[in-house]
């Protein structure tokens, strides 16, 4: 018998993934439970690269949830559906990986493969997850949300503005999260050129999120054509996977 994908926490993760969260509070609950399981995954435990991403994602989703409760968005129906759809794709990727399915998106597989080692630095790991999630999952989550709400991705709409507000949340969270990752001497370095780095990180997220919106518009136009849709999917998966591999390569460590 080969060892199950998730080692000692396999049964727990399978159990968790059997449930499909239907609202943002449930997504946050799911990510919290997942975090508790990921840090118990030997041999890396707390430094599991996927846990690095999951923690960031949990923080951001929690902020989104707070924003929804606090009336921060113009169209909460859209934003909460988007958040649920977005998370569903991450959980789907995990489910496919659990079943060792060959259809696991490559963009995710490159991060999942590193779960049991070798270790990667927390920042590039989290960035690899963000890359897969935003560059690959987000456009599809957008398209599904718009088609479910019988609306459409239009620049300058309430939905578009709400979507851009997430950038503020990223910008708000990433600098502090980065500092959270850093060792002491790195903190010193960070303080020296902190602002530039923060700017760079913020820009990266904003840039890729903008690309995701454009890609969603592109998929939107061909969403009734199964072949074109599949082509687009393969293209995004390949691009995201290439960037993900780069982030997780020794080169990616320079980011940190």
């Amino acid at each position, binding site marked *: 018998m080969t060892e199950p994908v998730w080692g000692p926490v396999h049964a727990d993760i399978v159990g968790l993934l059997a449930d499909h969260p239907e609202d*943002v509070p449930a997504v946050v609950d799911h990510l919290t439970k997942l975090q508790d399981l990921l840090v118990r995954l030997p041999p890396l435990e707390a430094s599991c690269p996927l846990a690095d991403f999951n923690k960031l994602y949990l923080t951001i989703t929690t902020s989104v949830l707070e924003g929804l409760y606090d009336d921060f968005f*113009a169209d*909460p129906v859209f934003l909460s559906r988007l958040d649920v759809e977005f998370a569903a794709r991450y959980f789907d990727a995990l489910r496919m990986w659990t079943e060792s399915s060959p259809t696991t998106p490559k963009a995710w597989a490159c991060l999942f493969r590193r779960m049991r080692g070798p270790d990667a630095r927390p920042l590039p790991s989290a960035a690899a997850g963000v890359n897969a999630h935003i560059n690959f999952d987000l456009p*599809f989550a957008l398209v599904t949300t718009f*088609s*479910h709400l019988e609306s459409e991705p239009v620049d300058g709409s309430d939905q578009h503005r709400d979507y851009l507000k997430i950038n503020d949340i990223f910008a708000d969270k990433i600098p502090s999260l980065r500092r959270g990752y850093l060792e002491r001497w790195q903190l010193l370095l960070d303080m020296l050129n902190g602002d530039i780095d923060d700017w760079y990180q913020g820009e990266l997220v904003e840039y890729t999120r903008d690309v995701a919106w454009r890609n969603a518009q592109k998929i939107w136009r061909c969403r009734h054509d199964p072949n074109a849709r599949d082509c687009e999917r393969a293209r995004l998966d390949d691009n995201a996977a290439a960037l993900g591999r780069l982030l997780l390569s020794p080169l990616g460590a320079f980011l940190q």
Partner: protein
Amino acid sequence: MASDVDTAPLVGRADQLTMLRSALLGELGPGQTAAVFVSGESGVGKSRLLHEAGARLRDAGAVVLTGSCLDIGDASPLHPVLQALRRFDADLTAAQARTSSAVRGLLGMFAEEPATPDGGTLLERVSRGLSLIAEGRPLVLVLDDLQWVDRSTRQLLLYLLAGLGDLQLSVLAAVRAESLQGAHPLRRVLTELRRLRSVRVLDLAPLDRADTDRLAAAIVGAPLTPEAAEQVWQRSGGNPFVVEELARDLRDGRDGLSDTLREIFLTRVDALPQHAHAVVHAVAAGVEPVEHWLLAEVLALPEQELIEAARAAVAHRLIVSADDGYRLRHRLVAEVLEDELLPAERSALHRRYAEALTRAPAELHQARLAHHWRLAGEPGRALPAAMAAAREAERLHGFAEAHRHWSVALRLASTPAGPPTGPVPGDVDRAALLEHAAETAHQCGEHARALSLLAELAGAEETEPSCAVRIRRARYLAAAGRSAPAEAEYQRVLAAPDCTARERATAAAHLAELLLHLGRYADAGRRAREALELAAKVDGSTTEVVLASSALGFSEAFLEDPDAGLAVVRRALEIAERAGRPEDVACAYLHLAELLTGPLNILEEGVVVARRGAERVAELGLGRTYETRLLAIATNGLFRVGQWAEAEKVVAAALRHRPSGADAVELLLARCRLSVGYGDIEASDRDLEAVATMLAGGGAPRHVLPMLILRAGLAMWQGRHDVARQAVQRGLTESRSDDVVLLATLAWHGLRAEAEALASRTVPVDETALRRLRDAVDRVATKSGTAARPVRYVADGFLALCTAELSRLDGRGDPDAWARSALEWDRRNHPYPAAYSRLRQAEALLARRSRNATAAKLLRRAYEMAQGLGAVPLTSEIRTLAGRARVDLEERAQPAGRSATRGQPASDELALLTAREREVLAAVAEGLTNKEIGQRLFISERTIGVHVSHIFDKLQVRTRVQASAILLRTRGE
């Protein structure tokens, strides 16, 4: 050789077959619905499982209809259902003449159903036709390749599964797992549906090692050598399709095992005789199933040679043959064949198909013609076919499909003429094509596409766009939720000198409606008056009058001159009646009923108008849409004024029209509201599931919050306060803060759930949830302060409830807060929340052990109201409290104390105890302290102590545990 085709046994799927049988037939009660969606990768055996399960269900007495969805993106609406009906009809014997005529009747409906303004008719007619075919037997709809399902079929499935078709139906469908990734529309539908009790998603996994060996051995006819078995396992990964093909090669002694399926099939294609080769490629280029006659025409082979060639292709396991025609054996075969033909060869095949189809009609005639002519490189010939297919889809209200055909037509019209063989496109009116494409895009919700088509239309005209185009553009913009540019566009129409008075009236009326939705009541009123003035000068502008009057009526109601507004809307109804156009009359009734039951809160009259209107529009032949909408208004009004029995009758009558879409959801919610009030858990659950099924199709976010509110209300009667909390939390994250009334209702439900969790100790109070609820209440209070009077009026009622619930959370509850809430709801003429508030007021008074007489009076009043409604759970809560407080609810009936002796006769050991002592003992057995018992029974802690010592004496025990043991023993627990 052909007999070899399906002899492979079905291995490793016994459990799934049993599950399918019981889920789709066995566990299903009359009138219920169920569905199983089988998902899995290509070749894992979904179709085979469907086939076997279908056969078993048929043997068990079900009527089984089998169809597949098509992957040509331009199929016609409801194609798989049509196909299933045709197949079913072909299999009927002469003895089943009645069923056969029912099937023909339904098929005829597809062919001839005229276009009507009543968009939902098709779904209703199909479901009526299906129930005629079923004749009371359970019906199973088996659909393969659901990943290619058209939008109309998707809506039909949800409609039937929601129970709206009123027949016992189950759906068994297969969907390729790979297709569901990305942005497939079914993905979201399945995620929503899999939460329902009546729906299962069966993820079909590959075979395990043992089953792989069994399957391979069965095909080879003998056990495999360990090496061969290992190879088959390694290469197939347990995929039964691959296992089967590998095992066959092994059995037939082909050299070594092919590495990939691609190689397997390529080897086979190469080994085919020449004609068989042609057959395979022709089937691959055709639209499946390819009829035998059509194949004969395309290949121009003599009958005998064609049959031999087809036989060989079947024997090589590349195609399969059925009564309705030939198909490729598997999707994988198509992928293998894709690169095997030269483009010229392929387009020649398409040309022959198109020519053959031109000579003889066939299933999906126009869509197929368009498809083949286009791929044959003959846009001029494809164009009329695409247009015909579009019109056909429009007739069946398949606007998404129609839009696709019109788009194809547009593309064809702009394709430069190819070879000089056919007519050149260009003799069609491109503007007309654009117009059709834009309008169908708008109707299927593709507003951005509609707008860009319209822009193209306007650009083609060289001059300034006409007023008609501008009005359309504004309409599309408004529908897309882009209010600012829509407003600007309407204004341009109003300012344009070349617009007719009629066009200006239309623009002003629509603009008024738009402004009303934006909450700009003063502007809306101004524009509405302008529209009415313009319309007065134009004959036959009743539609504009009705629309503008309604906008004016509502804006006046919101701006505190309700009487003037009401008069305008009443006059609009008179005008509409005089002009006599049915839609105008129906709209006028609808606006009047909405105005009365909505902002004006004149409920009784609103109900009367809605019911009279319903009768009237039924006479006018608009029963399905407008009558159901009017009856939904009547139901909700009757619910609020407390005439629940009447409301129940009305909603039942409305549902007999088998409405679909948003109208159906509205009615299901109305019925569910009644069931929750009655405490009928089963019925409420059923309606909530039906609503969730309909909402899985998307498009109606405004129904989500009412559904969540009902879910929370139901959960509270069940004592499941955590479930109620979850529903409220989801609602809070998905509601806009300007939806003051819904948000207030939601917050009240949340606070009530926390207060009741605290009182009943089912779950601990969630402090974070509580904090958020307080925030929500604050927000509602702020927003309603600036809202229009009618909005504020309703919101204030809920805010009173919220304040009172908060006092319950802070302590024993503030009787004054509850008194205020009761008063608010009395003023609004809503007995249900008023009775509830009285119950809580009485409870708060009793908890303070003061003014027992007032509390008794309140309880009696609440009891009377709740009983009048038929609100069972509320009545029983009032009874429980009255029992604990020893209040006699039936004033004149029995002397005090009698009520406490109701209940089961006590056995001997307890016979010595008084009724009160038995109550105390029951609480002791629950483990409560004297203080807690005192709070529950509204007597002092010291008195409880006295009761307890009496109990000990009479039962001759010394501890609470012993006393409890006697109670439990006599109860037989």
